[in-house]
């Protein structure tokens, strides 16, 4: 640590910090705009001016920008000096020259960094009396509103979008006071991280269009710490609600997971919570096949009666339901009758992933840790489509070599433009082997296109080259052998190598090969990290809770008289014929939050809470268990699925769920019964957590309208609900001070109303949260754990005439069931497509955009052809068909489409 002085106070800084970071870290108020902890310093806004003195006798000092100033030992600075204070106020005055002062109608108002900094500098009266510059705004698509007139030209948006996230369709245009941040023309922002512009922008240029549709001020929102439910990475979010409507999702900083950024699916996929197809009351099936609403007690009595019948009951769990709900169902139906609710193919892959990660023989990295990898191999995964936030981490990892090169020229890592200019194209080696092109290819040292079998062979060959003891690949092509050498050498040369694969590769052999590489690196004394991505928010948690390769199909094959389906649409998991055959002889009870083909077939439907009305725990691909809390305190029949099941069991007189009456009790039972969950109870403070007797307030101190919001119906103020089994109050009453990070419902500090207030909650700037980053890692590598090499090396792929190797290509806005119910996500989804190599398309006599027909499951499907010139020949990529994944055959026949009926 270095010691330095600000206005006579002695402070400490880390040697690699700049002065602005050091001041913020010390809790000082120093305004800034262009600096961002993840983007570094560029010195553009001139807002963080301070005085630097040259020695103990220097009385005059000179003005420097804190963000561009290193902190040498013993350095002396002043923030309070009148000249720099006046300069900082002047910077605000300049920014206000063209700013429209439209705070009352601006959706950033109340959480605007520009407002905060204006107050902080003391600037009050603007002397500029001339005409303001105005811009035309752009339509940037369904996610983001654009109001360029508010722009203060801090350049953070373009630096994030282009430099950090790799986007290309957004830039800075024009010059002087006409600089314009947007697209070359109106149009949807293409990058899957565009939503972060909302939080990166220090004022209201980019605002959330979905939030705007049901806007309320930040202070009128109830907040709850939540966890994203739209992929397997478990990004932390804050879910904001008011009047029983989920209003928006914002990022919740977790220094080990998502840090400052969410993908657009996670940020904008929340709308399903408010959709009309939500189930709000229990439904029973009438004799005519229609469904009718019944009350809670009736529903419980019906389920209890079914349970009491004593016949075999099958429980089908869900990778998108909480640990708690899955576990209670498992206890209710018995371990042998509980099935993970995934397709047969996915079940095999998830079993494999859970076994590899659960073996203790490999280290699973956090997303933040992935940013520090110095060589990366992505095997078979299209990360930007399947796990976008992981792709963003790898994009940062690729910068490592450039940052090191700059460091050798004494350019500190925080000096962003200096580092980028000096680094040029210097990147840490990233290798991407996938069948089709990915949006991460631009940073790859080598992006290799191959069929899944060949990708697996490449992986096995890499492992064999790293460690002789690993099984070698017979008859490897010269190209793949050369690639394997290059990759193996790069991974071996790296202190922190990272291997990434996952369920989305669609091939067990690819996942096995990835594991072999990690094991081989370990055998050579490295500490490799292995991320095996999973598709849904609790896929790994569910896989860790179950054994074997059971799936929805094996569950249905039991032909049990009663089938209870937990938060799952069977039609996404198994062929319709299998479902119909079973249900003809079974009673079907479905617990879910929204209508689906499965709920419409059910004899009894119980309305389950979505993540927005529920408390629960999810396990992400890192093996990190994380707790989410409800921003909506539902007062109708909507409750967590496990509460329905526990109540029904009690009504049926069954003892199996007797003790499972709270989230904490379920966590304790899980910890006691399954070794992987031993540390689960530490995931978050218990429900009876109180600060000096108070619950944590879930509304802000300024929350308004509580007494008026229902005045149109009733002038009496309703008694606020008291959330059961929760450390939170339902109102602004309660504790607002220091809160354990897992329970923080809002980031706010005096003078810091925007998301930039984070600097008040980090133990060090850009580091972990004070009190530790939330979540517990369930799967730590153990030195004594070992896993043998896998030798199931597939044969090389060779195209066959007429039989096309079918592979599922992930699509970020198509594939998630829940997000796919949100209208803005639906708008961004692409039509299902058949992706072919150009020569293959030519041989079939089709051009891009023309249709071909194929059989998927028992249905004939016509798909428009897309050309990916890099796709290997003989492969038919099926994009946007994740909901049909179970039905996609290995080999596909392609036929001309039916001519249109005239």
């Amino acid at each position, binding site marked *: 640590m270095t010691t330095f002085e600000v206005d006579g106070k002695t402070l400490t800084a880390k040697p690699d910090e700049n002065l602005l970071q050091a001041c913020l870290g010390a809790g000082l108020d120093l305004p800034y705009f262009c600096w961002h902890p993840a983007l570094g310093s560029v010195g553009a806004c001139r807002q963080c001016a301070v005085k630097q003195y040259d020695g103990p006798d220097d009385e005059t000092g000179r003005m420097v920008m804190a963000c561009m100033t290193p902190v040498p030992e013993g350095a002396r600075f002043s923030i309070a000096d009148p000249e720099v204070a006046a*300069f900082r106020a002047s910077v605000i005055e300049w920014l206000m020259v063209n700013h429209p002062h439209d705070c009352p109608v601006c959706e950033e108002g109340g959480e605007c960094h520009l407002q905060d900094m204006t107050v902080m500098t003391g600037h009050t009266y603007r002397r500029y009396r001339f005409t303001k510059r105005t811009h035309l705004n752009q339509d940037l698509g369904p996610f983001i509103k654009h109001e360029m007139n508010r722009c203060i030209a801090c350049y953070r948006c373009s630096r994030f979008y282009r430099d950090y996230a790799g986007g290309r369709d957004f830039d*800075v245009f024009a010059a002087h006071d006409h600089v314009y941040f947007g697209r070359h023309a109106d149009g949807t922002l293409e990058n899957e991280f565009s939503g972060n512009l909302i939080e990166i922008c220090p004022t209201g240029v980019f605002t959330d269009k979905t939030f705007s549709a049901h806007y309320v001020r930040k202070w009128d929102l109830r907040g709850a710490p939540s966890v994203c439910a739209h992929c397997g990475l478990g990004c932390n979010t804050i879910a904001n609600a008011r009047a029983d409507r989920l209003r928006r999702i914002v990022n919740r900083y977790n220094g080990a997971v998502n840090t400052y950024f969410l993908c657009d699916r996670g940020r904008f996929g929340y709308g399903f919570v408010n959709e009309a197809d939500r189930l709000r009351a229990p439904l029973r099936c009438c004799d005519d096949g229609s469904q009718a609403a019944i009350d809670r007690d009736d529903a419980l009595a019906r389920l209890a009666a079914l349970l009491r019948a004593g016949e075999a009951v099958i429980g089908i769990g869900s990778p998108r339901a909480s640990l708690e709900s899955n576990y209670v169902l498992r206890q209710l139906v018995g371990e042998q009758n509980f099935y993970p609710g995934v397709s047969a193919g996915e079940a095999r892959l998830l079993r494999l992933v859970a076994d590899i990660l659960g073996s203790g023989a490999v280290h699973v990295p956090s997303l933040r840790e992935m940013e520090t990898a110095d060589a990366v191999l992505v095997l078979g995964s299209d990360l930007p489509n399947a796990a976008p936030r992981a792709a963003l981490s790898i994009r940062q990892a690729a910068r490592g070599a450039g940052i090191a090169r700059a460091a050798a020229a004494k350019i500190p890592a925080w000096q962003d433009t200096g580092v980028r200019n000096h680094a040029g194209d210097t990147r840490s080696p990233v290798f991407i082997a996938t069948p089709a092109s990915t949006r991460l290819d631009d940073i790859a040292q080598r992006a290799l296109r191959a069929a899944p079998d060949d990708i697996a062979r490449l992986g096995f060959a890499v492992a064999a080259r790293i460690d002789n003891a690993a099984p070698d690949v017979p008859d490897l092509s010269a190209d793949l052998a050369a690639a394997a050498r290059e990759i193996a050498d790069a991974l071996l040369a790296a202190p922190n190598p990272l291997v990434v694969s996952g369920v989305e590769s669609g091939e067990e052999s690819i996942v096995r090969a990835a594991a072999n590489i990690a094991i081989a690196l370990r055998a050579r004394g490295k500490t490799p990290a292995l991320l095996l991505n999973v598709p849904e928010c609790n896929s790994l948690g569910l896989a860790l809770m179950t054994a074997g390769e059971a799936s929805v199909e094996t569950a249905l094959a039991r032909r049990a008289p009663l089938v209870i389906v937990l938060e799952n649409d069977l039609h996404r998991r198994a062929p319709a014929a299998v479902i119909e055959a079973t249900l003809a002889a079974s009673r079907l009870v479905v617990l879910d939050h929204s209508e689906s083909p499965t709920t419409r077939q059910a004899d009894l439907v119980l309305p389950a809470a979505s993540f927005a009305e529920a408390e629960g725990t999810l396990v992400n691909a890192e093996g990190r268990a994380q707790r989410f809390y409800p921003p909506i305190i539902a007062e109708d029949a909507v409750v967590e699925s496990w509460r329905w099941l526990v109540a029904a069991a009690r009504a049926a007189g069954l003892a199996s769920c007797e003790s499972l009456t709270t989230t904490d009790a379920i966590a304790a039972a899980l910890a006691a019964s399954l070794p992987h969950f031993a540390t689960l109870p530490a995931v978050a403070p218990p429900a009876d957590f109180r600060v000096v007797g108070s619950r944590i307030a879930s509304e802000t101190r300024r929350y308004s309208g509580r007494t008026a919001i229902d005045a149109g119906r009733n002038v009496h103020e309703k008694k606020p609900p008291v959330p059961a089994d929760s450390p939170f109050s339902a109102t602004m009453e309660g504790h607002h001070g220091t809160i354990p990070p897992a329970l923080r419902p809002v980031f706010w500090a005096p003078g810091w109303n925007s998301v930039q207030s984070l600097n008040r909650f980090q133990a060090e700037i850009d580091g972990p949260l004070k009190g530790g980053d939330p979540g517990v890692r369930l799967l730590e590598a153990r030195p004594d754990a070992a896993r043998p090499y896998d030798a199931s090396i597939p044969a090389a792929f060779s195209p066959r005439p007429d039989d096309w190797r079918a592979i599922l290509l992930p699509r970020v806005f198509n594939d998630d069931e829940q997000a796919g119910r949100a209208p803005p996500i639906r708008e961004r989804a692409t039509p299902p497509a058949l992706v072919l190599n150009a020569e293959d398309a030519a041989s079939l006599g089709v051009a891009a955009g023309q249709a071909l027909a194929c059989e998927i499951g028992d249905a004939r499907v016509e798909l428009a052809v897309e050309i990916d010139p890099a796709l290997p020949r003989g492969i038919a990529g099926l994009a946007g068909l994740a909901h049909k994944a179970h039905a996609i055959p290995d080999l596909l026949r392609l036929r001309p489409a039916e001519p249109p009926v005239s």
Partner: protein
Amino acid sequence: MAMVDRPLTSCIQPGRQPLDIAGYERAGGYAAMRKAFGMSPESVVEEVKRAKVRGRGGAGFPAGRKWEGAPHGADAPRHRYLVINADEMEPGSFKDRLLLEAAPHLMIEGIIIGAFAVQAETAYIFVRGEYVLAMERLSRAVAEAEARGYLGTDILGSGFSLTIHVHGSGGRYICGEASALFSALEGKRAVPRTRPPRSTTSGLWGKPTVVNNVETLCCVPSIIERGADWFLGLSRSATEGGTKLYGVSGRVNRPGLWELPVGTPLNEIIEEHAGGMREGYEARAVLPGGASTAFIMRENFDVPMDFDSVGKIGSWLGTANILVLDQKRCPVGLLRNIEHFFAQESCGWCTPCRDGLPWVERILIALEAGEGEPDDIELLAHHVDFLGPGRTFCDLAPGAMAPLRSGLKFFREEFERHVSERHCPWHDTAESWT
């Protein structure tokens, strides 16, 4: 006249095409290059350092010291670049244009020797976009030099290799800022870069880069051929060697450009070379070296025109292209025109420059239009202070403030009359600047 007196312009024949490579060699050209190849790079640097050439782009940094600061030796990183800043856009300056259009081989010889001195293997001549003729002539001269084996690999068996690229600027003033020039050359937005790192550490494409002005490098062949002592002897200044291109514009009898000994006094340049003021005009003040220098008033017209002397009286030599303000011009109008240029040419990167300069311009427009307010002069002073050196990201805004700062000092009464009389005192008599 012999080269002895005018090393920069002796090969220029007014009204004629520039010398081709044969003509240039007949006039003694490329002899210095051959001589330099017989020397070590270090001794070339040493000779230029002793000759006390100061950067003629306007910054005045000693060229020899700049070369000396570039990484050298076997361990120094490669690839290295020499960039010739020929993006001459300083208002009132037109000296480099003469050299580029009329003495392209002198330029190329200077580049070869300079690149040899700093052991750069690639040189870029970054030419102002509007200098179309200069680019044509440079490109032709480069082709001639390549054909003659003066460019390429292992030039004349020296073991030294050099490629020269002629690159046109996109046409913004900021592109002439050395670090913004790198961004422009790399195809990025022409935004200046922070120092550190210095360009000799991390310049073009992150590689060690030396940037020299056209005129600076054109001094080099004669220094190498005839020696530093001879070069120092040309000057009338003790602190700086050689001759210099001095230009004069404004209401003088013979506006133009002359190669004169460094340190020639200002009044001598105006009176003897520019032929004095035109009938009915009196010189009130000058901007000595482009629009981003401070006014020099009449009482200092005896100042020797070298960096140190002009610096001592509170201005700066800059490009030494002198702009004369006469009594029939409104100084507020002159400054309004200048600030319009700088406001328009701000790259938009840093706040004070981007949003401060247009404000300054609008205040000056209001003053000229008789719409000034009593606080306006204080507001201008506020900007002069807060757009000064060290406040903004690069030197554009401080340069823009230099004439305004001195204008507020020397023409305070004129500013105040604009406010109190609610119109421009020159309104009926002045000739427009625009």
